[in-house]
């Protein structure tokens, strides 16, 4: 009897989950699996690791992986450094304005990334708004600066897109820090700055961790920003795109996609571990 009740409850839960699971299986898991499978298959259908062997021993390709990781790391560090003070103000100082700040953080995420990246182009083109200010309006420069296709601008645009993720991750952990812990440190003779480094920062390390991993993961796969703003970076997503569309070497593209996927999965695993430590 009890088993029957339990079973029917389980059946109902399965039924509710089914549409989402089927959708994910058909449109997410299967294409990914198919794509990865291609990288392991020879032309006549046999199994091979030769593409991975070739890819991972090639100095050029290793360079691309390294460049991807370094770019993502740089974007991550800058994003977290910018995000922490924002999160701090959001949680501790904003009061009734915090709703507005959250809206301002989330609103850009609802805008198409292509639109936002074009925005950067409009601002920083040779005859763009920024150069017009600098040269014509303020007269600070004689000739317009070249912003587009510089590494700095590409990194700035990536940071701009990713900072909200870091802010929200850090803010949610900062929210849970008991203010009385900080007050306890103050009474015991710690200055405000000392209290921050002794108590607040260590207690928000998990938020920094989850935020950083999230930013790193998204930066790793970022494509549109780098295509439109250039910067001379040669990253995995750009290379994959080239292989699919220009070189038409699907097998190599699949190999690189799988490597990117493995990096993303490693990040996800790290993130889950961090979340579990927080007891979520």
């Amino acid at each position: 009897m009890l088993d029957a009740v339990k079973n029917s409850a389980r059946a109902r839960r399965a039924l509710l989950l089914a549409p989402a699971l089927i959708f994910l299986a058909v449109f997410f898991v299967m294409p990914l699996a198919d794509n990865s499978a291609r990288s392991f298959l020879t032309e006549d259908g046999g199994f091979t690791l030769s593409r991975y062997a070739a890819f991972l021993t090639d100095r050029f390709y290793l360079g691309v992986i390294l460049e991807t990781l370094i770019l993502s790391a740089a974007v991550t560090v800058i994003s977290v450094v910018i995000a922490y003070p924002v999160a701090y103000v959001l949680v501790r100082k904003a009061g009734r304005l915090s709703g507005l700040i959250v809206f301002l953080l989330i609103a850009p995420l609802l805008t198409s990334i292509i639109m936002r990246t074009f925005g950067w182009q409009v601002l920083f083109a040779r005859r763009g708004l920024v150069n017009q200010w600098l040269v014509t309006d303020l007269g600070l420069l004689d000739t317009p600066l070249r912003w587009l296709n510089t590494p700095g601008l590409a990194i700035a645009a990536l940071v701009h897109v990713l900072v909200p993720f870091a802010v929200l991750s850090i803010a949610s952990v900062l929210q849970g820090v008991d203010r009385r812990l900080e007050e306890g440190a103050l009474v015991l003779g710690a200055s405000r700055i000392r209290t921050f480094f002794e108590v607040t920062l260590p207690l928000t390390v998990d938020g920094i961790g989850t935020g950083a991993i999230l930013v790193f993961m998204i930066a790793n796969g970022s494509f549109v920003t780098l295509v439109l703003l250039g910067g001379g970076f040669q990253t995995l997503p750009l290379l994959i795109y080239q292989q699919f569309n220009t070189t038409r070497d699907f097998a190599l593209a699949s190999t690189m996609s799988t490597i990117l996927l493995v990096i993303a999965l490693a990040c996800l695993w790290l993130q889950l571990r961090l979340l579990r430590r927080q007891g979520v």
Partner: protein
Amino acid sequence: MSNAPSSLILSGIHKKFGSLTAVEDLDLDVAPGTLVSLLGPSGCGKTTTLRMVAGFDAPDSGTIRIRDEDVTPLPPNKRGLGMVFQSYSLFPHRTVAENVAFGLRMMGASRQTQADEVRRMLDMVKLGGREDMYPAQLSGGQQQRVALARALVINPRVLLLDEPLGALDKALRESMQFEIREMQQRLEITTLLVTHDQEEAMSISDEIAVMQDGRILQLGAPNDIYDKPETAFVATFLGTSNLFTGTVTTDGLLRTPAGNLALPAQVPPGREVTLSVRPERIMMGDAAAALPQGLSGRVISASFRGSYAAYRIALDETGVEITSYRQADASLGHTGMSPGDRVPLGWPVDQGVIVTTNENAN
């Protein structure tokens, strides 16, 4: 580490939060080495007062002096205080030893001094050997001991206790009360305690300041406040009391809904006052025969409370309800009397206390 004379003086403290007055014209003088409690219901301003002493909030006006030094403009870390919070507020990412050593480290004490002092303090609070545990691995009572050790290790000029036992269960609370009191007296440390628990305040304080609506209503030794409350609020907040409010007649009696009652002192006719009589001062049965009130009533409820029994009694004719306690007596059974029993009652006139009616106090 016996303390040099130290004391805490608050004078003319005002504090508003927006339009809400939290503390109004508060003066308080804590004598060296004594423990003073701020006692009152939530929202009475006791916690705000403590936070101003700690330096977390600044008073709108008035000064706070510690050992003859005006600390009003100083930040919390320059006041030389120790503080224990209700939630313990131990640093969860640091071990017991690191928690206790924190204040010493901030003062720049050597590693050796830190280690020695931590061991000495942990021995004192009976937690020797737990140096390397994390707060989450300790029980509530143990965490509170660590918090106490952490506050005392820096030899603070004043110890602040913010509802330190509020999170503990009753039995533990009682034994911790004794422990805190014993340690406070041994170290002769000037202490300000905030609590809403009247039993706690009475059992560990040298003096109690009863607060309501941001003011201190009455300040005095626990037994003075209990025996001689000045207002109806104090009489009922510290313990239980039967209050009879009325107007004084020309022949010196108090005309109340319960009848005309004799007063323990002369009050000019026409004044409105309240007579407060503690439940344990009410006498019942034969003992009440010779008492001047000549009241009698019917027991509505009787409850056994261990060392004593409590009764609600409705007075005949007027129906006014009275609370009365009687020492539990094995020969009378658990409560001695049962609902429905009729009983004469009264109290010796000098056992009543004339207090200000609440309306007048506000």
